């Protein structure tokens, strides 16, 4: 099978199965192909074929040797804006900017500050663990192709949260095909204010009990670049570089996750989240091995 883009239709799937079945190409030597599914059923079909015949499936846009690559940009539908619950459900191939545009038509706002690249596919951002506080539920495909959605209920207590394996999970416990994100009302009266004093001032703000909508703490140079590309007034930036550890994350991040004063929407993932990582990685690997014993899922493309 040639290394090129395919739109998935039955003949292509048949060819894929055929290729996987053939002895020289079976198992780990699966064909290097990029598929661009446009439905969840198609994602499911590829996974189920790969699972049955020992192929490996990754997510990306360019071919990878020995891996069937799923290009999820075809999953670009915005399925629903639920204005009543302030939620939007969008395919993994949608860009956060497109989702935000669709939400704003309903008078709602998607906080793009959570995304490092608002013009890259949502699925990539979620696989990297970005925007976790915005995620309400996800729809994902398991290694054998079964597609499911995590329960759509706020702060449920029905056991551990499987989302933890999917958001930030690099598509290795399941391939995220769709997500429901939290929105908020557009507030026309919102104003940015500049807070000289950097992290210290921000910390004071956080413990003041004053309600605030979001805050950004950035290194000065980066702030200028970001502000130039946004409609935020140029003086709305703290002048000090952050004194708080950024823990390997981009310097620019929304500090609306700071503490409760920013509201329940922002409660997940605080500013000092994590800390001593401890030996979490082996536990994660063990869980992935049990979920995907045949190692069908190859993860996101490098």
């Amino acid at each position, binding site marked *: 099978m040639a290394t090129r883009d395919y739109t998935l239709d039955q003949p292509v799937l048949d060819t894929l199965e055929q290729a996987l079945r053939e002895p020289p190409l079976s198992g780990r030597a699966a064909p290097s192909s990029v598929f661009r599914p446009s439905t969840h059923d198609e994602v499911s079909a590829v996974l189920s074929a790969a699972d049955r015949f020992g192929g490996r499936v990754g997510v990306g846009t360019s071919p990878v040797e020995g891996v069937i690559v799923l290009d999820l940009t075809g999953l670009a539908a915005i399925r629903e804006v*639920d204005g*009543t*619950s*302030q*939620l939007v459900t969008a395919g993994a191939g949608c860009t956060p900017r497109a989702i935000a545009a669709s939400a704003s038509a309903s008078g709602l706002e998607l906080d793009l500050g959570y995304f490092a690249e608002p013009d890259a596919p949502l699925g990539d951002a979620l696989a*990297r*663990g970005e925007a976790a506080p915005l995620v309400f539920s996800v729809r994902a495909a*398991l290694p054998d192709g*079964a597609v*499911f*959605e*995590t*329960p*759509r*209920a*706020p*702060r*449920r*207590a*029905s*056991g*551990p*949260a*499987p989302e*933890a*394996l999917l958001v*930030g999970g*690099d598509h290795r*416990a399941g391939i995220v095909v769709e997500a429901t994100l*939290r929105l*908020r*009302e557009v507030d026309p009266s919102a104003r940015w204010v500049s807070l000289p004093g950097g992290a210290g001032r921000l*910390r004071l703000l956080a413990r*003041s*009990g*004053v*309600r605030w909508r979001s805050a950004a703490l950035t290194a000065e140079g980066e702030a200028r670049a970001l502000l130039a590309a946004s409609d935020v007034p140029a003086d709305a930036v703290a002048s000090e570089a952050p004194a708080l550890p950024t*823990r390997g994350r981009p310097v620019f991040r929304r500090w609306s996750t700071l503490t*409760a004063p920013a*509201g*329940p*929407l922002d409660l*997940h*993932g605080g500013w*000092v*989240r*994590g*800390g*001593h*990582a*401890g*030996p*979490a*990685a082996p*536990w*994660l690997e*063990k*869980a992935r091995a*049990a*979920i995907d014993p045949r190692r069908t899922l190859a993860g996101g493309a490098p």
Partner: protein
Amino acid sequence: MASPLLIELERIVGKEYVRRGEAERIAYSADMWPRNQLWKLQGDPARHPPDAVVHPGTEAEIVALHAAALKHSVPLIPYGAGSGVCGGTVPIRGGVVMDVRRLRRLIAVDDHDLLVTAEAGIIGMHLEEELDARGYTLGHFPSSILCSTLGGWIAARSGGQYSSKYGKIEDMVVRVRVVMPGGEILETGCEDGVDLAPLLIGSEGTLGTITSATLRIHPKPEAKAFRGYRFQSLDSGLRAVRALLQGGLQPCLVRLYDPFDTVLHRSDKDHDLDVVAEAVSEGGRQGRQTPGRFAAAAKRLGTALALGNASWVNRIGAALGQSCLLVVGFEGPRSVVDADMRAAQALLTGLGGADGGEGPGLRWFEHRYHVSFKQSGVYDAGAFVDTLEVAATWSRLAAVYRAVREAVSPHALIMAHFSHSYREGGSIYFTFAAHRRDPKALERLYDRVLHDTFAAVLREGGSVSHHHGVGLGKREQMAREHGAGLRLLYGVKDAWDPQAFMNPGKVLPDRAVTK
């Protein structure tokens, strides 16, 4: 229990901390799950006693206890304070119950980052009092705060009365330290992309024993304010609550009582269970006089219940009116509380709420921990009473409420309040009660009510649990709620506890095809 294991347990924690007496085995056979009471009514006071109860005093002892239980293939059941209401600590396969309440230190308060680290066995109120003395609050106030532990909260995904402002326990936890089934210690964090805490939070002792946790804290609020409003209908009340939350206000307390609960909501009772308990007991004890204008109503209600005439009581309740009481509260800096209360007042009265003044809220505040321990009295009178807290988005919440009412009304008295609200939805807290003369028939009725409730909730797109967890009581619903996603949770269980000795039989249903 084999004596080599017993010797090992005694070596690990000391002889005085291994208990096998009848009293202990009965006490630790049950938590506050109502089914324990139904079994008791059938002459079975301790259907699932543990073989032994241990009281470790250190994390190292917990590590050693894990190793011992694993080596001897004996179930190990972490135990906080036994206030769980889903059977989470019931040792259905025997084994060793491990009560962690001797690990009760507040380890550190970080004034810079506003964090507290405490051991898992600390009782909730003790933790709050220690924080209060230092000028902070955790913001977590379950009604059971006097009789539940930090570890139990995390293990069961607890929610406090102020969850609209501070979130539930999963929102507060920054790090959690766990003795994994094989005895390894894992402290969660998210530096490698995935934070494993959300898998351990809500694991109810099935994936390890929580020994300590670090949580966010907040400066002690300077001021509080409460106010009650009456709405013409449940729908208008729900609309107002949604507008309050989505409009950006951050009330700490939002409690909307449905019409029946509004009628029964007595000034000195916070807990629906209390109302039912007294009604039933009054019905059973005709001679006793209770002063006050509610006594007669309670007696009538109790008598009707005693006759098993729940559907009639529901109809009377519906006929008594459709109006609903909403209680809201704010806390924080005085200036912010005042401004927020003014904004809420304008919004709620603008949406049709009749201002009922401070009274309802202040009374609620005064009695907020008057939790009901009258459950067994209700059962002794031949009735059952249970509560179920379910969750749904705003677009599904009213439908879930109606479907459950419709399904349950013919069989049991039912009332509800909406007590945990967020921007995207909230929780409904149902209380059910019914009566049958025959204990076995009572259990059958109880099963039916639960079955019909769960079916209605899931059909309408809700979750069967908002803050009580799963335990034994809801585990059969997990397949339907999670679908094929349950396989992720089975995978985690298989990977981390391959011998399946940690609190077996809880949370996850027995293995079935969930494709």
